[in-house]
């Protein structure tokens, strides 16, 4: 009796699964960059509402996961937010879908408003350890950085150049926790995606250039990284349609409205 019941429910479940898959929806999976994940979700929702026969799933995981899963086929599109794509990504077709500024941020109580690129480098390398050396109060600097492997960190380090992060820098594992740490500690300095600046933290000018959308589009603010969509093989079919949609005026408008920068 029990056996029959178990067998029946098993058949039922498998049947349901097969039936569901057979409904003919084309599915696209995106995975990777956590910085772009919320934007990809919004774009996917918009695209799906106008194309009901397409199902788009967006997963995070980080840039490395994006590259890995595009290579392995676990996701059709891998998202990566790196300045320089690693070796493994060379075989993939890369499309820049957006750009993202990386803001150098401090606590709002901090008097300092501007740092040169050299000063930023020296602070993160541990050569400058007190805010008075760059025009602030006589208090030690608490450096906050991201974990090794983070797309934001490697982009930041490559653009600023020659960064060998000092030993006792605090490490936080997301843009959000960097923001909380800097908001809580009056002596700290960190960096995060430009779209995530709010009133709890203050973005510094770097080389007298403000980190604003206008300044980044004009090409004045230098710490900017591209966001790539990586696809195995050439762009075609539904995947191409979706990427075309993101690059269209409507898609780029969404990206801009939510705090990122359009690709062109």
């Amino acid at each position, binding site marked *: 009796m029990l056996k029959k019941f178990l067998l029946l429910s098993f058949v039922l479940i498998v049947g349901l699964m097969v039936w569901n898959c057979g409904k003919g929806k084309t599915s696209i999976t995106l995975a990777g960059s956590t910085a772009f994940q919320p934007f990809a979700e919004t774009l996917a929702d918009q695209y799906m509402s106008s194309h009901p026969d397409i199902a788009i799933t967006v997963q995070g*995981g*980080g*840039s*490395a*996961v994006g*590259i*890995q899963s595009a290579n392995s086929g676990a996701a059709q599109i891998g998202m990566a937010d790196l300045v320089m794509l690693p070796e*493994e990504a060379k075989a993939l077709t890369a499309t820049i879908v957006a750009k993202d500024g990386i803001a150098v941020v401090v606590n709002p109580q901090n008097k300092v408003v501007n740092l040169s690129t050299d000063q930023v480098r020296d602070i993160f390398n541990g050569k400058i350890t007190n805010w008075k050396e760059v025009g602030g109060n006589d208090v030690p600097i*608490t450096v906050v950085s991201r*974990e*090794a*492997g*983070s*797309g934001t960190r*490697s982009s930041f380090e490559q653009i600023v150049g020659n960064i060998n992060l000092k*030993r*006792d*820098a*605090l*490490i*936080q*594992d997301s843009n959000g*926790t960097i923001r*909380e*740490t800097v908001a*809580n*500690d009056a002596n*700290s300095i960190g960096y995060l995606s430009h779209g995530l600046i709010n009133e709890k933290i203050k973005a510094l000018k770097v080389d007298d250039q403000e980190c604003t959308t206008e300044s980044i589009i004009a090409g004045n603010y230098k710490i900017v990284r591209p966001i790539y969509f990586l696809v195995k093989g050439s762009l075609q079919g539904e995947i191409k349609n979706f990427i075309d949609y993101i690059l269209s005026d409507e898609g780029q408008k969404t990206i801009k409205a939510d705090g990122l920068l359009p690709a062109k």
Partner: protein
Amino acid sequence: MKLISEKGVKRILMATAFSAISALLLIALFIISEGLPFIFKYGLKEFLFSSDWQPHLGKFGIYPMIVASLWVTLGAMVVGAPLGVAGALFLSEYVPKSVMNIIKPTIELLAAIPSVVYGFIGVMVLAPLIRDNFGGPGLSLLSASIILGIMILPTVISISIDSILAVPRSYREGSYALGATTWQTIHMVIVKASKSGIIASIILGMGRAIGETMAVIMVAGNSVNIPHSPLDSVRTLTANIALEMSYATGLHRQALFATGVILFIVIIILNSIASVAIRKRMVKR
């Protein structure tokens, strides 16, 4: 019919028991098979005793993290064990039973609070307090020790209480009959009689402290640094794995599994030291 169900129950229980053991074996096998090749390739000595952890340059030294894990665990013990044992003694000896029956479940509720919440309180309340009063970045060895010390309290208190209550009534009566005060009874009779249970509670607490990840990531600051004072930021072995796993590929990923192997070994060593200590005391008695 009865015989069949009797046998069936035995089989089901056996299957359940084996599934727990095989899960443990599979986990151990998986971590070791992913991590060991890296240790052989990179060199055990270099991996354990170098203090350079720079995955992008191919340098993987976890010495600072081993030191940090041990310090954080010791710190949690220093904070949690005296508080827990004192609390257990007070609740079981000085407080009426009806009151204890309310307070003990309340303390055990501490164990049901998710570790993220502890971490959050650490970041929002404890770290600013430490930063303002003692200096340093606030997110530090000290704050991690205090938070972990509080987290292990329910384990230490409830197991200690259970073992103290298991001391036969006649021991207490005998002690009081000889004219001993309550405190004399506690430290000369009750603590001695329930020693193995109290030590076991501290060891279980230690196990929780060394394995805790989320709260530690939030309050310890995570810099790869050998601490020179309790105010320095540290990264534990568990935090290292959780922080970098999502981004790691290739050799870096293997190095994280190897970190897991070392953590596994550290915990086995600590546990066996502890159980040997218990056994010795039992024999003495």
